């Protein structure tokens, strides 16, 4: 898969360290490390030798970047360009982590993805690097301001390869470059940059989750009469006789249930005017099922919710 231009003689088998030129043949355990600053790789011993005493410039000729030992790590991909690209993507993905659900329409989400990808390509191909980095910086600031949590650690500017910028990583990269250029213009409008670095249309308003309310054992249901108040006691003997009758009271028959029920019947439907409420009906006697209500128990919502109340 690799289309890397091969250096004379050297294969991707990395037999030779570019710095000390020692070969694997002589040192079978030679491990290569790479620094995301400039993506130059060198063997472990070189790293130890050069950087153990602190930051030092990269030993590869022509690369003047200051490297630190801690930033060296094993190479994940065979192709350094891929490694670099993955690193860039990783960093950018941290900043641009919106999901489809955050957008109103699919189109908006796709536009967002397009913008992000464009930005990425700019970084990878080093197009308008300065502008892009600045915008990313602004966006980052915007994000940190937005969240109430502790300050994010500064995301270092994606490392940039000074050389190999002419390398085409994917088919149609040139085209992409142009498109990217156009897009940039579109985004930046007449040349001025939005304050936050990026503007995405169609973002749904993010509602901060409410602090959890204390648990409601009724789960929001209540039955409150509006036309009457049930008293504890009524005294119309021929109606309320059960309260004196031990045959009733011993078994838990509660005469207050009787009052409650009688009054509920008495006023249930008082304010229901059938003439009005039943007026426009498609067909008399169309069977109406009970409306399906949402589930209880913890505050979740079912899919069906037909509310007649």
């Amino acid at each position, binding site marked *: 898969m690799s289309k890397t231009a091969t250096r004379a003689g050297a294969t991707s088998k990395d037999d030779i360290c570019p710095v000390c030129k020692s070969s694997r043949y002589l040192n079978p355990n030679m491990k290569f490390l790479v620094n995301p600053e400039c993506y130059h790789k060198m063997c472990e011993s070189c790293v130890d030798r050069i950087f153990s005493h602190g930051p030092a410039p990269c030993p590869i000729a022509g690369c003047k970047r200051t490297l630190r030992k801690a930033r060296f790590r094993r190479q994940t991909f065979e192709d350094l360009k891929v490694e670099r690209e993955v690193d860039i993507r*990783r960093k950018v993905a941290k900043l641009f982590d919106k999901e489809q659900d955050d957008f109103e329409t699919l189109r908006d989400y796709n536009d967002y993805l397009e913008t992000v990808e464009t930005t990425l390509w700019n970084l990878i191909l080093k197009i308008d690097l300065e502008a892009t980095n600045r915008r990313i910086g602004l966006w980052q600031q915007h994000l940190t301001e937005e969240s109430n949590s502790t300050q994010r650690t500064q995301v270092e500017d994606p490392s940039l390869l000074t050389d190999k910028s002419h390398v085409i990583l994917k088919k149609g990269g040139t085209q992409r470059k142009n498109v990217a250029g156009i897009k940039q213009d579109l985004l930046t409008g007449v040349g001025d940059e939005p304050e936050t670095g990026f503007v995405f249309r169609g973002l749904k308003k993010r509602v901060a989750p409410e602090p959890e309310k204390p648990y409601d*054992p009724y789960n929001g249901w209540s039955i409150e009469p509006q036309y009457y108040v049930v008293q504890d006691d009524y005294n119309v003997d021929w109606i309320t006789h059960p309260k004196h009758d031990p045959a009733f009271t011993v*078994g838990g028959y509660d005469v207050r249930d009787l009052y409650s029920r009688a009054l509920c019947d008495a006023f249930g439907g008082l304010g229901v005017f059938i003439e009005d409420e039943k007026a426009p009906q498609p067909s008399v006697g169309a069977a109406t099922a009970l409306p399906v209500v949402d589930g209880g128990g913890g505050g979740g919502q079912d899919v069906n919710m037909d509310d007649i109340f």
Partner: protein
Amino acid sequence: MVDSPALSPRPNPPGAGPKTTTSKIMSINPKAKAVAILNTADKPIAMSADTTPSNGTADLAEQMNDDVRNQFVSGAKLGEGTYAIVYAGHYRHDPTRLVAIKKIKLNTTLKDGIAPDAIREIKHLSELSHPNIIQLHAIFSTKEQNISLVLEHLPLGDLEGLWKNHSISYGTPDIKSWASMLAQAVWFCHENFVLHRDIKGNNVLIAADGTLKLADFGLARSFADASRKMTCNVITRFYRPPELLLGCEHYGGKVDIWSTGIVIAELVLRDWFLPSNTDAEQLLAITQVFGTPTEETWPGVSTLKLAAILGASTRPQPMDYWRTKFSMLGPDGIDLLRSMLIMDPNKRFSARQVLEHRYWTSAPRPTKKEDLPKQGGGPAKVGEDLKRRAGELPSSGRGDKVARKLDFGSMR
């Protein structure tokens, strides 16, 4: 000029599928009656107009019935009980909306017409609408005089199956959540003046999203009418309160509260709480835990019809019994449970009092229903699992055919 039509009931029988056994209907009243082919009348002659159904337009009522029936499509059989068969089904216009169709068996030798359970269930379920009570979507019938109830589809089994299933573990907040939903269901029934009278673990079903639903209103009736006596021969024995065992004929919502208390206790213990083999044994089991009722603890108990079967007096169990056995409830929970299981129904908590107790608002908070432990759903669910193609996941949103999006942000 049309000849009298031959007898031919309408088509569209429910489909037959792999048989599974999930009996949902169990009650102490004997419901089983043998089905025999009625052969008393002579076979009708084609000429006789008396026995043939009219060939013209169907009754308006029948038309409406057919309208309702055609809203649903029934599918595989899910289970069979003594008085009904349960089929899976869905709305015709929206196959994602599942229902369970309970077809009450035609009983040609039932002496007194349509069974009381059917009548009660139909009458009461139509009037109740609450998230924790099983929803009756519609009722229709087929030409064969079978009444079919279209109920909510509740695939995850019942509470009894849950505690019996030792591969599922649950803790204090889960119990609180389930108990809360059950209590709400009972409260709503009582607010609408309906007694359920058959609350037990396997009549409390679990929906796909974890909600608890009270089902099986075959023994329900309305209460708070002073005029009439009610039968004391209701509620499955393990869950029957002492006043019913002692023959009381005027009672109220408190009987359901006792049953609910027992159900919650079983959930905690993961075993039967007060098992017995006869009514007298049941009373014994109760008195061994709660002590024999006396005129002081329960005024009027000696006047009850069957008070004589109360044996020698026993003392109630000490608090330690409760603290050790029901430690998963916590002190508030134990207090609530004991209040729900007071022998004297007048002192026993009402549904409203149950919901007003501090147990619900004290720590820990009841788990959200999405997070409740769920069981697989029994053989029916397993059958459904098997019917799916290999490799198909239960709930794939975008389908497994789309390549997964690489998530760079979460790499490392």
